């Protein structure tokens, strides 16, 4: 049990005014030192599950423990010293320099009105260096490219000196190089520093190449949990994504190729997929819940 960072047992959650559960009876353990991805289609409950694990939402059923304690009972400051999160969207209202933005990661370690100490400055410098953002330190954050801004946000999470690093769709919208850089960085941190990494993503192919384990969510339920090879099967993916796919191995890791309608016609019944796509409108209630996370 000691080595479980997050433990969800049979956890469910329903947003106010929704008529279905956004997360339904999910059980999942995240072990210390592993890199795990929560994957699934849009609106499958990934972010909701993450918010349950991080104690932002209180489960309507089941139990979520974080470091052995009911997740929502954590003091946010205490939790922020152990878990660094890079959230999906973030729009600062006032301009900041990169170094100031990264220094915000020290706040959980500071007393309410104390200035940054030498130890804090060291941590900020180290985090900037680790995220390859030292050269950006004096730039205004408004002038950064998407990839640079993501590196800065990872640096800020590292300045928290956390045991766990969580990235919620943090590479969505980045080009190939920047996306790979961020993921390589996280993978390195997990391998070299013994951090635990949790990625939330809908990109199963990339996830498969970096993570130890994948949890695939489908309309709020855990469709499959295991190593990429175990989880990424045609059966699971076609059921979850409701689209015909082919699995192609790449250096021993399964990669998913989504088929075009004409390609699928040879392999399966296109009419069936047509109806599957219509059914893909399910989970709307959850999507609207997700659209209002704050």
């Amino acid at each position, binding site marked *: 049990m000691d080595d479980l960072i997050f433990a969800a047992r049979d956890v469910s959650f329903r947003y106010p005014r929704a008529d279905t559960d956004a997360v339904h009876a999910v059980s999942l353990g995240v072990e210390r030192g592993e890199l795990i991805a929560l994957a699934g289609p849009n609106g499958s409950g990934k972010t909701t599950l993450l918010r349950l694990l*991080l104690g932002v939402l209180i489960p309507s059923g089941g139990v979520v423990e974080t470091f052995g304690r009911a997740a929502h009972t954590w003091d*946010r400051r*205490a939790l922020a010293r152990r878990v660094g999160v890079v959230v999906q969207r973030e729009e*600062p*209202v*006032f301009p*900041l320099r990169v170094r*100031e933005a990264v220094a*915000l990661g020290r*706040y959980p370690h500071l007393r309410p009105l104390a200035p940054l100490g030498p130890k804090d400055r060291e941590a900020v410098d180290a985090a900037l260096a680790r995220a390859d953002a030292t050269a950006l330190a004096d730039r205004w954050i408004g002038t950064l490219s998407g990839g640079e801004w993501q590196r800065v946000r990872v640096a800020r999470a590292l300045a928290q000196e956390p045991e766990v690093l969580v990235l919620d769709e943090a590479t969505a919208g980045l080009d190939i190089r920047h996306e790979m850089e961020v993921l390589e960085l996280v993978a390195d941190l997990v391998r070299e520093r013994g951090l635990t990494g949790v990625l939330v993503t809908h990109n199963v192919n990339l996830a498969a190449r970096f993570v130890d384990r994948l949890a695939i969510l489908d309309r709020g339920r855990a469709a499959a949990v295991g190593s990429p090879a175990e989880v990424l099967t045609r059966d699971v993916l076609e059921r979850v994504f409701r689209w015909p796919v082919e699995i192609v191995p790449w250096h021993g890791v399964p990669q998913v190729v989504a088929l075009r309608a004409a390609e699928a016609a040879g392999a399966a019944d296109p009419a069936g997929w047509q109806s599957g796509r219509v059914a893909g409108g399910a989970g709307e209630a959850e999507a609207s819940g997700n659209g209002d996370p704050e």
Partner: protein
Amino acid sequence: MRWIVLVAVAIATLLVAVALGPVHLGLGDVVRAIGGGGAPTTVSIVRDLRLPRALLAFLVGGSLAVTGAALQALVRNPLADPYLLGLSGGAGLGAVLALALHAAGAWAVPAWAAIGALLAIALVYRLAIVAGGVLDTRILLLAGVVVGAFAAALVAAVLALSPAREVRGALLWLLGSFEGTSWGAVIVFGAYAVVPLAVLYRASRPLDLLSLGEEPARFLGTNVETLKRVLYVAASLLTAAAVAVSGIIGFVGLVIPHAVRLVWGHTHRTLLPAAFLLGGILLAGADTVARVAFAPVSLPVGVVTAVVGVPVFAVLLRRWTT
């Protein structure tokens, strides 16, 4: 260095504010009179009339500037100002009613204004609590505008039904004034303001985080829901008291935080104290201008802050967009 300059300017502003008036005094006379020396009439003018007035203007200006800075981070909107939350409307309605109904006593108007402001605060707060008991800062803004507009309509109705003399008094009150400030008002306001100011200052670091957004603030260690409530209550109670003692003085809470950000940056730990001093300087200075510019007639101080504040704000807007 910047702090020394700011403190020196603050002291100089207060001294000049006390020196200027129908009877012009030298700065030496002012300093002596504060200590109780010099001609008895001078001592009386300084100690009983001008010093309390200048101090109250300073305290109110500082409070409005701090409140504005905190609210801009809370609602994540650089255009937020202390009066956006509807309480000025409630305060105005209370004050106008007190004047129209001839409520007796020196404290009648401030008391009614405070009650009106508190009712408006409670209403806006209630409207902004959405599903799940969450305080939605976007709705907070909208609710403030709506409640303010409603109160303004009632104010207009009361004024339309009142005799002309009272209408003039009420309009002047609505535009803000430190006319007839007593030491009692200074002491009551000063003692009252200490708590909300301390609460806001203590929230400096969470305010830094909040301006990133609620979600990042939470994961950087802030209990966001509690923070928002504490900030809203502290900011609105402070503004309510400011309105009660001085009427509705615009632009201090909007312009000063931005002016300070240009020099001191965005860290609330330094932003808030600097905003307090600069807000105090602006309002004590504006009140002096209001008193002496067209002596013996006084302008409403809100007119002076607006005349100074609007061009400054226009310049700031240009800087933003270019």
